[in-house]
Structure formats: structure tokens, C-alpha cells
């Protein structure tokens, strides 16, 4: 215990919390008084032994930048927004966690699945590669063709959004990664 607190204290970034509250969705981070409503009502926390929204918020308040941004549990928030709706302090818990994911992503810490979704998006406009067989089947089901995608226009709108840096390291094999299990 003592050892851990020493090693952590050397990695505190006192400005981190101010970075978070300047981002849209992160504004109310400092109002959290650690009641734990978020964790006790979190559907993911019920079944995961590592995902605890209250702890993530505390880590952000304390400035444990590296520890929180490099964690894999950060990405387990299902964005159901139960915590946001029930927080007695009005902290948008799910949005603070999304801000932290955005900060991690900006540093290139991105789970493979999101790279696959993004690479599909810039090629097809959809986050999935919709198989040819599905597109053909639409006709036999009496469905109209899929709406057309303006790929060029889409990509122009995304200029300056660091798409290439998000996609760094995406493997072609990963494109077949399970998305919806």
C-alpha cells in the first residue's frame, strides 16, 4: 500500500484536472464528491472487476494522467448514461470518461476495434463494411438501394481531424475483427 502510494505520487500531474474541465463534457469533474452512485448503478461494473467509474473520476481529479489514460478499463464504459442521469452533483460522468478516452486516443492509445470502424467510415461512409451479399439481398427483400455516400465530401469535412494518426497501426487483418461478436 505504502509502496504504491509513493510510486503514484511521483506520477501526479497537477494540471491534468484543468485540462479535463476545459473539454466539452468534462466541465464538472471537480464537483464529484465520490458518493459512488455511478459505480453502484453501473451495468458494466456489476460484471467487470476492473471498471469502476467512481475510481476513474477520482484518478482524473488527482491528476493520475498516465495511469488513467493508459488503462484498458477506460474503454469499458458502455455509454448508457445511467451515471450521468443519476449523479447527485450533476457530473456528466459518462462524458468525463469520454473526454478521457478522447485524450488517450489523441496520444495514439486506441483499441483496435475503433481503428477498424474509422477505416471503414472513411472508405464507405458506414462504420461496417456491408457485405455485397447483404446489399444484393436488399433487393429480394423489397428494400430500396442504400443511400449514396459522398466519400469525397465526407473526407473533405474530416480534414484536420487527425484521421491518419488515429489509424496508425491498423492492420488489414483487423478489418475482419469481430465488431458485433
Amino acid at each position, binding site marked *: 500500500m505504502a509502496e504504491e502510494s509513493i510510486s503514484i505520487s511521483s506520477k501526479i500531474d497537477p494540471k491534468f484536472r484543468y485540462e479535463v474541465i476545459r473539454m466539452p463534457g468534462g466541465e464538472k469533474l471537480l464537483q464529484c464528491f465520490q458518493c459512488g452512485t455511478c459505480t453502484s448503478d453501473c451495468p458494466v461494473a456489476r460484471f467487470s472487476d476492473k471498471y469502476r467509474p467512481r475510481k476513474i473520476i477520482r484518478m482524473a481529479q488527482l491528476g493520475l494522467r498516465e495511469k488513467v489514460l493508459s488503462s484498458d478499463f477506460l474503454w469499458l464504459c458502455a455509454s448508457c448514461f445511467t451515471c450521468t442521469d443519476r449523479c447527485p452533483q450533476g457530473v*456528466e460522468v459518462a462524458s468525463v470518461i469520454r473526454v478521457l478516452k478522447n485524450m488517450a486516443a489523441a496520444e495514439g492509445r486506441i483499441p483496435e476495434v475503433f481503428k477498424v470502424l474509422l477505416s471503414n467510415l472513411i472508405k464507405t461512409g458506414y462504420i461496417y463494411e456491408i457485405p455485397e451479399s447483404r446489399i444484393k439481398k436488399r433487393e429480394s427483400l423489397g428494400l430500396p438501394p442504400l443511400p449514396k455516400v459522398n466519400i469525397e465530401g465526407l473526407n473533405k469535412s474530416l480534414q484536420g481531424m487527425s484521421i491518419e494518426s488515429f489509424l496508425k497501426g491498423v492492420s488489414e487483418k483487423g478489418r475482419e475483427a469481430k465488431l458485433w461478436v
Partner: protein
Amino acid sequence: MGMSQKYLFYLGCAIPYRVSSYEVSARKVLEKLGVELVEMPEFNCCGLPLEPLSHELMLILSARNLAVAEQTGLNILTLCPGCFSTLRKTGKTLKENKALKEEINRHLKESGLEFKGGIEVKHISQVLVEDIGLDKIKKAIVKPLRNLKLAGHSGCHLSRPKKYIGFEDPENPRVLKMLISVTGAKPVEYLGETECCGSTIAALDDKVSLSLVREKLLHVKEAGADALITICPACHMMYEANQIRAEKMFGEKYGIPVLHYTQLLGLAMGMQPGELGFDELRVKPTKILEKI
């Protein structure tokens, strides 16, 4: 009133990828209820699945869709609560924040688009209840499903975060129950009705997401429901297509049919299962079809 209702149909990504049964049945029932769907002239993902990477990226993606829709002057109808909440949140956020709106519009301008904020985004359940109305739906019911007891699952994004959505109460959802009742079936109460399906983390942790599926299906079974009714493609995918995976993971048998609400409504309106995408269901709803 009396005029036919017309909406721009925003399909999203999940439905054409895996859940065409929802689209097939929704188009059928909406047509019969006098709703005209106009296809999007141009489309891209709503942005929700990519918000974990960048909030601004999500805003650009959804604002593009809203800007395209504005050119048609029609309000959007979505089948997916994820698309619904994302487009709605973006519209509200940009209307309230002029500087942000200008910043996002700088991106949109690159492809000749501009977000002004002139249209509304509605989920099909909202259109059914608010625009078409339960009275009109009731008149279209030719085969009331009186023998069915059904559990409803609305999905998180239909009502959360409540400050952005505000048409349904996330703690005590009523819309889907009213819609089930109007078919003549009985909506049943069950434990954990508002719990999340886990779809957004299915690719990251299948133990957790399938545990959520398991819990929901066990509660639905305990309540004695004949089926679970969804109004979200992602929730449907979790409870229906992934039910068999959950059964394998936990060595249990649930056997709960999961129908899109539009399939249920179609049956009550006298349509045949074959017209409503029932062939695509993996958990065969044989028992329900025998009961009606």
C-alpha cells in the same frame, strides 16, 4: 391532420449491416399507417460509435447528416435510438453554442454543406406515439394479440442522457409499454427493465456484455413473458443474435424470442410473418405464432 406524414428516413449503419428484419417490418407498418419515407439524398454514420475517439469527429459526422436533411426540409425519422440520440444531441448542442456551430460549419463548408438547425429528429416510437397517435394505430389493428405477455426493452439511448432527449422517462419508460398495449398484448413488468444491453462494448469484453444479455433474458423468463420486444437494432442484436452465444458461454438455455416492435405491430395489423422479416430471426418465435 388527414395529410400523409412525410419523413426523411435515416437508416444508420447497424440495420443494413445485420438487422434488415427491422427495416423490412418498419417500412411495412409505416406505409400502412400512411407515413411516407423519403430516402436520404446523401448519408454517413451518425458518429456515435466514433465519439470515443473524438467528440468533434462525432459532431462533424452528425452535423453533415443534419445539414443534408435540412436541404430537404423534412424531419428525420430513425429506427435506431443511437442515431436518434446522437443527431438530436448534436442539433441541440450546436444550436446552443454559436462558436462551436461555426467551427463545425467550417468543416462542413469544405463539402458545400451548412448546419443551420432547422429540422427535428424523431425515433420511430416517438412518431408512432406523438405524430400518428395511439388512436389511429388502434384502428389499424385487425388481429389483437390478446394471448401474448411481452417484456419491453427500450434501450438507453432512447431516453438518456435525459437533458438532451426528454421525450421518454429513462427511470420509468412508458412509450414501449403503451405501444405493446395497443396491439392487444399485455406488457409485463420485470426486474432490471432499464438495464443496458452492453452492445457498445461487445467487441471489447464479451464476458461483460454477454453477462448483461444473460441477466436480461433470465429476468424476462422469470416474469413469464412470451417474448422480449426491442426498438433498437443494437439491443436486438445482443438479445437475439447473441442469445445463442450467451447460452454457450453460460451453459444455459434461455429460448426467449426477441422481436422488433415493428414486427409485433405488423402481426397485429394482419401482416404475415414472412412479410415482416421473421425468417431472419435466429431464436424461432414458433410458440408465439401458435398463440396468436
